[in-house]
Each structure stands twice: as structure tokens, then as C-alpha cells.
């Protein structure tokens, strides 16, 4: 279970998914695992959060999906980044950097 409030997670989830897929096509489960590992703070993604986000991003054209074969030898849906998705990632990252820096500054000053 997440240690952070759900809303906080939600806004950044899409950015994290985009980041995950820069390494190449992945299926849903792998994306979830990768995010859990990469954030390295016990962030655990629920199916009910991860998959709807994937579908929404697919509808918006950030992701593209195709069927492939997973490491278990099973049919699985693989997501890959589209050009639009790459642009989104770039702008999200830039915005996030600015935003978090600002928050950091504020928090440090407050202390």
C-alpha cells in the first residue's frame, strides 16, 4: 500500500509510465514492477490504478499497444511510446523539475 496520498500519486503516474517505456515496449505487469522498483520506496501500484491510466494514455495517443509473447510464453499486450508520448514525457519532466525544485525550496525555508 502506498504511503502517499492517492491524488499525489495520480498526477505523476502518467509521467512515470512514459519514463518506464523509454526503455522499449513492456506489458502492464512489467510496467508496474518497474515503477515499484525504480521509485524504491514501497510504492505499490494497484491494477485498478495502473491499467485505466494505460488505457487513457492509449486513447490520447501517447501510447500504442500490440500483442506479443511474454516471458511466460503467453500472449500479452505490450505498450510502447509514440512520438506524441515522447513529447509529453519531455514537457512533463521539465514541468516536474521546476515544480519540485520550487516545493523543495519552500520546504527548506519553512524548516
Amino acid at each position, binding site marked *: 500500500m502506498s504511503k502517499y496520498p492517492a491524488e499525489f500519486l495520480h498526477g505523476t503516474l502518467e509521467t512515470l509510465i512514459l519514463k518506464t517505456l523509454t526503455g522499449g515496449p513492456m*506489458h*502492464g*505487469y*512489467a510496467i508496474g514492477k518497474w515503477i515499484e522498483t525504480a521509485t524504491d520506496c514501497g510504492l505499490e501500484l*494497484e*491494477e*485498478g490504478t495502473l*491499467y*485505466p491510466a494505460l*488505457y*487513457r494514455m*492509449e*486513447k490520447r*495517443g501517447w501510447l*500504442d499497444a*500490440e*500483442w506479443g509473447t*511474454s516471458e*511466460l510464453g*503467453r*500472449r*500479452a*499486450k505490450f505498450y510502447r511510446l*509514440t*512520438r*506524441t508520448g515522447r513529447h509529453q514525457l519531455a514537457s512533463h519532466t521539465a514541468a516536474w523539475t521546476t515544480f519540485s525544485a520550487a516545493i523543495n525550496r519552500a520546504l527548506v525555508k519553512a524548516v
Partner: protein
Amino acid sequence: MTIRRRLRSLLWRVPIEQEVHEELTHHLEMRTQELIERGVDPITARQEAQARMEKSHVEAELTRLGRQRNASWARRDWIDELRQDLIFALRQCRTRPGFTLAAVLTLGLGIGATTAIFSVVHAVVLKPYAYKDPDRVLLAFSKWRGNRGSWSVGNFDYFRQRITSAEDFAADTGVSMNLSDNGEPERIFGSRATWNYFRLFGIPPAYGRTFTAEEDQPGRNKVVILSDGLWRRRFGADPSIVGRSIRINQEPHDVIGIMPPESNQIGDAAEAWVPIAFTPEQLAMYDEFYLTAYVRQRKDVTQQQVRDEFVRVAQALATDHPDLNRERSADVELMSSFFIGDYRLRLFVLLAAVALVLLIACGNVANLLLARLALRSRELAIRAAIGAGRGRIVRLVLTESLVLAFLGGAAGLAIAWWSLPALIRLAPQGVPRLETATLNGTVLAAAIAMVLGSALFVGLLPAWQATRRTSLTEDLGDGKGALSGSLKPWMRQLLIGAQAALVMIVLAGAALLVRSAINMQQQPIGFDTKGVLTARIALPAAQYGSPDAARAAYRQVLESLQASPGVKFAALDSQAPLVGGGGSNGLFAEGKVDLIQSSSHFISPGYFSVVNARLKAGRPFVETDTRQTPFVMIINETLARTAFGDADPIGKRISCCEGAPGQPHWKTVIGVVNDIKSQGPAADSRPEFYLPINQIPDAAWSWTGRSFVLLTRGDDIAAMTTAIRTAVRSVDSTLPVYRIWTMEEGLRRIMAQARFNTLLMSLLASTGLILAALGIYSVIAWLVAQRTREIGVRMALGASKRDVIRMMSVHGLKPVVIGLAAGLAGAVAATRLLQNQLYQIEPRDPLTLIGTALILFIVAVAAATVPAWRATLIDPSSALRE
């Protein structure tokens, strides 16, 4: 990305439920595997993973999101394809400018004409009225022997005291007024109205106020309300005129209000209103009928209840005042339908005719498009071969026709924008609200609907044709083979057949209108308009209140006129032919009880010489017919027939215009004059009587408002115009002379309505005829091009030119003949709608219908023969070598 998505959607689109289920199953397995690896036993691991999944309800959520995703993709694909089709269609248009121009102009003409006519129909018939709750505003009629007419003051007042189903019951009467203020004295058209007139219509004044009940009393009625038009024209749109005093008929009147422009849409367009303020004498007058009456019905009653009450009150009136009202009844009608009733049908007929021409234009463009598709059969076959479905190809063709229709619509709007003002200028006077016709939102919406409809009409047959190709090899093989093999000529024949039918209907309508216009022109009107000039003057009551003064003034004017150079004859009439105005009286012949409502003419003795009417019997009036000599009367043939049947009317006596109930005032008939059609040739002859101006009762001077028409006959219109102005000025320089018209102008104005409709219908019919001829021509030309080789063979084998011409033209003419037969049947059904516009000709006049069909057939033969004749110029040897 787009291509990838399209491929995916084409190659493996699985139902969304299956997609979600498979994806989640995979997730479940991965999770179970992970738990097992962590040391959980397989059964527990599976249960745990499953429980977690179910708890999140993710499957339902994903199915919903997936559906949204698919719908959004489908939309995007559709728009992508539309964009491709549009680009393709536009490129097609550009590469063949001749074809595009022909199609766009043809559609533009059709859409433009229809839009212009529709905007007129909208302005006159469909647009809501300016006054409040138009469905409760009625016109009330006083009926005499079933004929609707105006009201006498006595009758109006009798009804006013008794009618309970009306919120308001008001009356007005048109009068001309002398407006003499700062500047030139001017004659204006005004109205005297009861005080509740404006309240009835519910139109508030733009400035100031409307009348009060107190102002509708004799002596307190010196107030005036100005129309927007007069206020702008004469008073420079200055609101401070309200409260000032202006002189009307030489008497000061306080301006109390200015009406907004919309008030012109009520009945006649008056320029100023004054309270009618009935005097006690007027209230006792039951036999002078000149008031128009209006009703605003109560919210809780129906129109039928109002009508019933009017009939009941009319019966009571007939009992109380039997001598004048025994045969009178009353009736009401919705005011809006009364004013536009006739125009509604006329305009809708016109609109229908225009729409038919638009259909003919669509037929031509469809024809062009079919020919174009035939040339592109190879391209379409390739499209089909690489996977374009039927729907896709239909859309491709419809997009092309849509592009053409939109370009045509743009051209059409330009044409409508340019032609609407011309149409309004050309139209006859008096079409209500015509000047308000504009290309407004409703009209634009109608034009867009026409564009879409045309696109469908134009594209439907070609689109259907385009999906009918099945054999790829045939289409990809010999280009010519493809043409004759897959494009059936019957389709184009169907088109020209339909066009022939439509043209037949429009042309038959136009022919009927032209023939009735000719009939009307040839109809004798009973007088001679040539060289006659008319003008109206009115003597104000302030100076000419006594009959002697008025009579003397008119005698002076007449004497001065008769002495003027250029004037051969001069005369006076209270209501001259084609000029309008005047009144009517009820009269009865000695020994008869029936009251005959009859138009009154108060004339000077020389009148019949001016209008060249023939005295059928008896003598004309002379200067010595005065109040001191025996009372005399001249009647027209219709009145003679009505009053006396076949008996000789000379010497018989008729009572009219004065006397009292039970005390007839006899006048002896001394002459019978031929019927004069004063309303123009189309109107029926009515009973009319003439009294010598020197003998009319004193009261008649106030009935007529001391207003008479001056008539002169001569050769030089300009000299007579000067003579009239000089003569009037020599008597009283403050008197305005107005409506100086030649009678020929008056006749033209009356015929304008008929001529306008005839002109428009003829224009439409000739446009339709030209379009249909072009259609027939192009089909035969296309057939000839198809069969060049065959014709070459035939001619090589000895066929004569005549054989070839016959063979080719019959192909085109067969459908035309069938179309003409269908059109004839359609014309018989449709021309009924013209009934009330026709004069002395039946809507099914066989001569006209057969003649029209014959003309059309001859045009079709000509249109077919030209390309067929071209076929004979084919050189057999080169045709065979091709």
C-alpha cells in the same frame, strides 16, 4: 502512428471484452508466478492474486475505457478519411476546371434562384408578425349578401357596445392629410383611428405615447402620432418634436408620439395617425361604409366563438335598423392570413417552380458526374481491388458531389445576394413585408439544406453506379470496354427523362401565365387610358367647409384647366378609374325592396369625354344640373341590369345618398354608360352610379373629404402636368397636388402583379428548358462517343447518314418522350395551383399543355440531332482502325 493504428484496426480488431480479459489474465498469471517464487504455495498464490484483482473492479472499468478509446479512434479515422476524400475531390476539381465550372455554375444558378425566392417567401409569409400575439388579431367584416365589406360608423358603434368576446374592437380609415408646417405643404397618407387602435396591436410607441380615450372625442382630438418614416423624412428624426405642434389640414395638432418602423406592417402604411373622434351625427350614420375594423379576441375564446357573436350582433342590428341592415351579416378572419392569404399560395407556387429548376440543374450535374466516373472506372476498380469497401467508394463519390454542391452553394449565395435587391425592385407594389427580405440566418440555413440536398441528388446515382463494378479484369483491361461494359446507358436516360418531366411542368405553368397575361391585355376595360393624366387634390375643411366654397373652388380649377394649352378635355371625379379611393352607397330602385351596394362617382359634366366612355342610352350631365333642377343620375350597365333587368332604365327612379328611412330621395336615371373596369381588366364589373357634382348632397362633400381627382386628356403630358399645377395654384397656392399619374401608368401598376409572376415563371421555365436541352445534348454526345466504332462499321456496310442520325437520336428521345408523358400528367395535377392567377383560361387548357409538350419535343429533337449528326461525320476507315 496513423498507419500502424489503421493496420491494427484492419488486421486484428478483437472485441473489447476479449482484449481486456486477455490482458488481465496475463497480469494474474504474472502475479501468481511472482508469489510462488516468493514461496507461497501455488493454490494460495492464485487465490490471493485473484482476490486482489476482483477487489479493484478493474475489468469493468477497463471495458468502459476501452470502448471510449475505440470510439475516439473510429472518429479520428473517419475524419482522416474525410480529409483525404476532400483533398482528393478538390484535386479532381482543379485538374478539370471546365467540368468544375460547368457543374458549379449550374448548381449555383439553381441554388441562387431558390435562395432568393425563399428569402422572399420567408419575409412575406413565414416570418412572425411585428404585432403582439398575431393569432389573436382578427379583421372584422361587415357582410352584405355574402360579400365582405367595410363598416359604417353607426354599425361599428352598435357592435362596439355589444361585442364581449373581444379585448379590443378598433377601427380606422385611410385619409390624406395636408401637412403644412415649416417648409413645403405636403400631402401625406394618414389614418384616423379609434383611440384603442395601438393598444389592440400591442406595439408601443418609440417616443411619447399613444391616444387616450379622452382624445377620441370631437373637439379634443387635435393630436397626432407620426410614423417612423415621416418623422425621419420630414422632421430629421428629432425626438423633441414630441410635444410640439404641427399644422394638419390647416389646424394645429400636438405631436404626442412617434411609432417604431414595425408599425408599418399593420395594414396600409399610414404616415400619421389622428383620433377618429366620431361626432354624434356620424354615430347615427348607418349607410356610409368606410371603416376597417379590427378585433383582439379574448384569450379564453376561440375564433369561431368570436365569429358567432358577430353574427348574433348582426342579427340584432338587422332587427333594430332593418331598412339598411336587413341583408347584412358580419364575419371575422385572422388578420395575418387575410393579408398574405393570396401571396402565400403565389409564393409557394413560385418556390416550387424554382425547386423544380434546381432539381433539373442537379440532374445535369449528376449526368456530368456519371460521365466523369465512367472515365475513372479504372481508378475505382483499383481502389476496390486494394480493399476499399462499397461504403468507402460511395463516400468518395458523395464527397465529390458535396464539394461541388458547396462550391455551387457559394456561387448561389453570391447570385442570391446580387439578385434579391433586383427582385424586390422589380416586384409589384403592395406585397406585404417584401422590403424586409434579406439573406438572414434562416435563409442561410435553408441554403445549406439545399446544398446538402443537391449533393445527395447529384451524387446518389453516380455513387450507386460506382459500387456496381464487379469484374476487375474488365475494368482494368480495355478502357473503352470498361465504359460500355459497366456503365449502363439507362441511368443517364432515366435522368434526361426525369428532366423532361420536370421541365414540362414548369413550362406548362409559365405558358398558362403568359396566355392569361395576353388575355388580360386584350380584355376591353371600357375606357381609354391614352393621353389621360390624373391628379388628386383635397380642400381642407377649415377654409372650404361650406359646400358652396368647395364647389366654387373646383369650378375655378376646372375652368382654368379647360383654358390651358395642351388640355383638350378636363373633368372631375370623386374616384377615377385606376386611381383608387372613393366610396359606395346603398341604393334602391323605385318599386323594388332590394338594397344595391354601388360605387359612387361624383363627376363634372365633361367626364365621359375625358375617359372616352360610351353613353349607351340617354344624355350626359350638363352644367345646369344643380340642386335647383330635377335630380338626375347616370348608371352603368351592370347597375341597370341589377336594378331593372331587361327593362329600359331611362326615366326610372332610384333613391340614394340622402333622405331618411321611409323617405326616399328619388333621382331620375337619364343615361346608361358602358361598364368601366376601374380596378383593371381582371376585376369584375360592379354596379356604379354617377351624380353631377353640382347636384350632390351637402353631406357628400364631407364624405369625400372634399377630395377629387382632376382628369385631363391631351397629347402633351408635360404641358398637362404644368397646366394642372398652375390651375390649382391660381386658386389656392397652399393646396398640394399629389399623385400626378398618367392613366397608362396606373394600368401598368395594376397589371404589375400579373406581369411580375409571368416574368419570373418565364425566366425559370427558360432556364429549365436550357438546362434540360444541355442534358439531352450531352447524353447523345456521350452515346455517340461510345459507339464510334459501331457507327463506323455500320456506315462501312452501307448505312446512310439518315439511318445513323435516327439510330442515335432515338436513343436519347425515347426517355424524353416517356418523360414528357409523365410531365404532362404532372402538369395537369400541378397547374391547379395557379388557378387564382389565371385569367380566362383553364389550368388544364389542352392547347397550352399539348403545345408546351410539342415545343419541348422540338427542342429535344434539336438537342439530340446535333450530336447525332456529328456521328455521321465519322470517317469509317479511321473509326475501324481505332
